[in-house]
């Protein structure tokens, strides 16, 4: 049985930021990730981030990831890659599987930063090779430098669909069209403008009827929909594509939080079922914290700030960080978080977040 003070599950933006804050506060931190490389989705974000200077705005996501990783290593975080957390057990034990061995990791506090899962969209032919998540496409092109195909239909005009379409063009593929059943574009206008300038049509009020092909995708049939989202007969068109990307939303990957017995709330604006947490990222279970998309789908910049908050709170609860110092840092984190949730894109999420906080029982800082 391996022991540590703070165990963090998931080395994406939230997990890395939590590890940095907690380790810098003097706590012993073990950061576990099932992948061969840390950074989660961050190392696929080759575009420049929004936000303010404090959010590293204007810096590419992959560079932010490298900076965070070196900060974590400098702060003495034990990073265990290729290690799956297959279960969470009473008295804060995690079940780890690595290579061909398994072991338990006992921690005083646990931070779950397990991120999000791509939402599926079922339509005839969706199981054929060539239909894949936008996240899958981004992984293949930006991490493994391999194009899964040449001509892409992207389903979903939110930020993910727009950004991955732009990155497909950078990788040398052609994006035949981006479609979305909604009447408007969900993502930032500037992301849409980049792909429009590059000649990619965005068809709002359209849905995919089918993917077709012999053994893999060769064509896709799309159709205009009416206001209730039903395809309008006679408004179908067939596109010559070999990849259909699905960017129809994300939802928290919260299996471990369910398993631990956390209280959950259903919040559609943040991706569905989310673990209830207070402003300091504590769940309904003492000593168990959450950070990042597992708490509700927002952006990497927000995930990093939530990670910092969770790391500070966990370190404070273990007595590693004097409360006065912790409170000052947490106020800064709160300000940076609020700054990211203002404006027409952030309002709905800010309100939804308030709803979650109202459900959480104020626990204050209790010993983990």
């Amino acid at each position, binding site marked *: 049985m391996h022991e540590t003070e703070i165990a963090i599950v998931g080395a994406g933006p939230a997990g890395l930021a939590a590890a940095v804050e907690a380790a810098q506060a003097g706590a012993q931190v073990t950061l576990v990730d*099932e*992948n061969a490389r840390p950074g989660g989705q961050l190392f696929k974000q080759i575009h420049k981030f929004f936000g303010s200077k404090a959010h590293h705005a204007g810096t590419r996501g992959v560079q932010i990831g490298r900076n965070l990783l070196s900060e974590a290593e400098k702060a003495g975080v034990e990073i265990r890659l290729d290690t799956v957390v297959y279960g969470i057990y009473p008295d804060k034990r995690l079940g780890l599987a690595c*290579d*061909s061995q398994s072991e338990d990791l006992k921690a005083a506090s646990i931070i779950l930063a397990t991120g999000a899962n791509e939402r599926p969209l079922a339509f005839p032919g969706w199981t054929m*090779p060539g239909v894949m998540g936008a996240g899958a496409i981004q992984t293949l092109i930006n991490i*493994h430098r*391999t*194009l899964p195909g040449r001509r892409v239909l992207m389903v979903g005009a939110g930020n993910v669909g727009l950004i991955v379409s732009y990155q497909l063009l950078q990788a040398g593929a052609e994006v035949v069209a981006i479609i979305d059943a909604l009447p408007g574009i969900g993502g930032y206008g500037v992301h849409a403008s980049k792909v429009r300038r590059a000649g990619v049509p965005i068809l709002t009020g359209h849905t995919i009827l089918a993917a077709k092909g012999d*053994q893999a995708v060769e064509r896709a049939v799309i159709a205009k929909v009416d206001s209730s989202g039903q395809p309008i007969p006679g408004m179908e068109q067939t596109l010559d594509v070999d990849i259909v990307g699905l960017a129809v939303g994300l939802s928290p990957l919260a299996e471990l939080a369910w398993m631990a017995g956390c209280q959950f709330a259903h919040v559609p604006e943040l991706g569905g079922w989310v673990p209830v947490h207070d402003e300091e990222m504590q769940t309904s279970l003492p000593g168990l914290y959450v950070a990042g998309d597992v708490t509700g789908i927002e952006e990497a910049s927000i995930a990093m700030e939530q990670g910092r908050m969770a790391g500070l709170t966990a370190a404070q609860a273990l007595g590693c960080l004097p409360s006065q110092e912790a409170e000052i840092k947490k106020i800064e984190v709160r300000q940076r978080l609020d700054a990211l949730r203002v404006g027409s894109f952030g309002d709905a999420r800010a309100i939804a977040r308030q709803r979650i906080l109202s459900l959480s029982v104020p626990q204050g800082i209790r010993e983990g």
Partner: protein
Amino acid sequence: MRIEMHPILGEAQWGPKVTLMVDGKAVDAFEGEPIATALLAAGRRVFRHTTKRDEPRGVFCALGRCTDCVMVVDGRPNVRTCVTAARDGMVIETQRGLGHWGTEQILGEKGEQGHA
């Protein structure tokens, strides 16, 4: 198709070249890259056929979660090729349904073959 030059990622630095035996045919790969990307780069998209409908399946999530990309690797079925690193000489077969166990695995002669 490989992305040799990328405006942001720059020039590719591939690992050493290795060879995978896929359904009896040699396929080039770079050591350490996922088996799945080597197959995609070789224009190969069908990795398995399902149990009930014998449907073709391939990469769907590329994150090791959906398990649609599983193949028989060195005699062991249900290996997620999108998160399993390619090694020289790997024997990879299209998986039919639940897949078959290679004799070496059952007798354990090949020894431990962990997969990420």
